């Protein structure tokens, strides 16, 4: 069993050696030590292999069109953020009011069906757009021009 190297020698120097970040005196010390220490040579080889594997890895990244050119400002995000809840509340009240008012107005089945269909259509349309916006908001933040 060779004696543990830590006693004569700070093991972190091996990282510095691999990274070529040592001052000349330390680099020399490591080189001399490596010549007679197989254990530290193996550590250096491992460090190099892992560094090489890490460095040459490639990842998938977002396509160019998933980014937009410049970020939106904080204030425009705030306004849009406030606008949608208000508009949603407005749509709910409007549809409810139209349904309730129209229902009282007429006894005629056909007119009531027309009213119900219209309100449902408008509601679906509005909430469909809202859902799209919510989804888009995640990826779409850079649309507006930064100033």
């Amino acid at each position, binding site marked *: 069993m060779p004696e543990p190297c830590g006693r004569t020698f*700070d*093991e*972190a*120097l*091996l*990282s*510095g050696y691999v*990274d070529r*970040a040592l001052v000349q005196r330390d680099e020399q010390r490591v080189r001399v030590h490596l010549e007679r220490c197989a254990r530290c040579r193996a*550590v250096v080889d*491992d*460090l190099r*292999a*892992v*560094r090489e*594997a*890490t*460095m*040459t*890895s*490639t*990842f*998938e*990244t*977002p*396509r*160019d069109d*998933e*980014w937009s*050119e*410049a*970020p*939106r*400002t*904080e204030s425009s995000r705030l306004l849009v953020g406030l606008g949608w809840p208000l508009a949603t509340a407005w749509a709910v009240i409007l549809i409810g009011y139209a349904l309730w008012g129209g229902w009282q107005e007429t006894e005629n089945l056909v007119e009531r069906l027309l009213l119900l269909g219209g309100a449902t259509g408008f509601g679906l349309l509005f909430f469909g757009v809202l859902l799209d916006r919510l989804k888009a908001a*995640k*990826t779409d*933040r*850079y649309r507006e*021009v*930064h*100033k």
Partner: protein
Amino acid sequence: MNTVMVESAAPAMVAGDAESDRQLVDQAKAGEPTACDALARRHRRAAYLLALQLLGNRDDAMDVTQDAMLRFFTTLKSFDATRRVQPWLFTIVRNQVRDLWRRRQRRPGDDIGESDALVGQLATPQPGPEADLQRRELKARVWRALAALPAEKREIIVLRDFHDLSYSDIAQVLGIPIGTVMSRLHGARRQLRARLEEGGRHA
């Protein structure tokens, strides 16, 4: 998942890039929108990759990167153009990531949570000879082991070995004295080695 662009590793900045970064920063400060675009184009991928490597999740990484780019541009006026852009942007990314962790009540000592989070984001290469297969397997093992490390250990390894930052840039991004970078990095690498040996035995 609609990511198809393959990004090569270690977008190391050479001297010419730093020089033209400086010009772009000056122009962007003067309100030149094309300079802002050029800066964003040049640096957002590395920023995204750092966020991805810290968070392990594409959507979160995208959110953090967009927020970081926004901060980058809103604080541009106070940026000293003689400094380099990438370490500064990385500092912003790291702060955004920490904010997100805080909101989710996660700690920098936590692992990514899902061991295949990073491996799953590696680009799939063209089929090649056996040597390539072995290298690919090593990469997968390394990123799986990295995902299992505490984020603060993964962070320093990734900054050095993937993004190829110098020790002084790492000190700047992490906000630590440069004299402590080597020992921290080595400690993290030792932990990674232990993980790899453990993983190797189980595989």
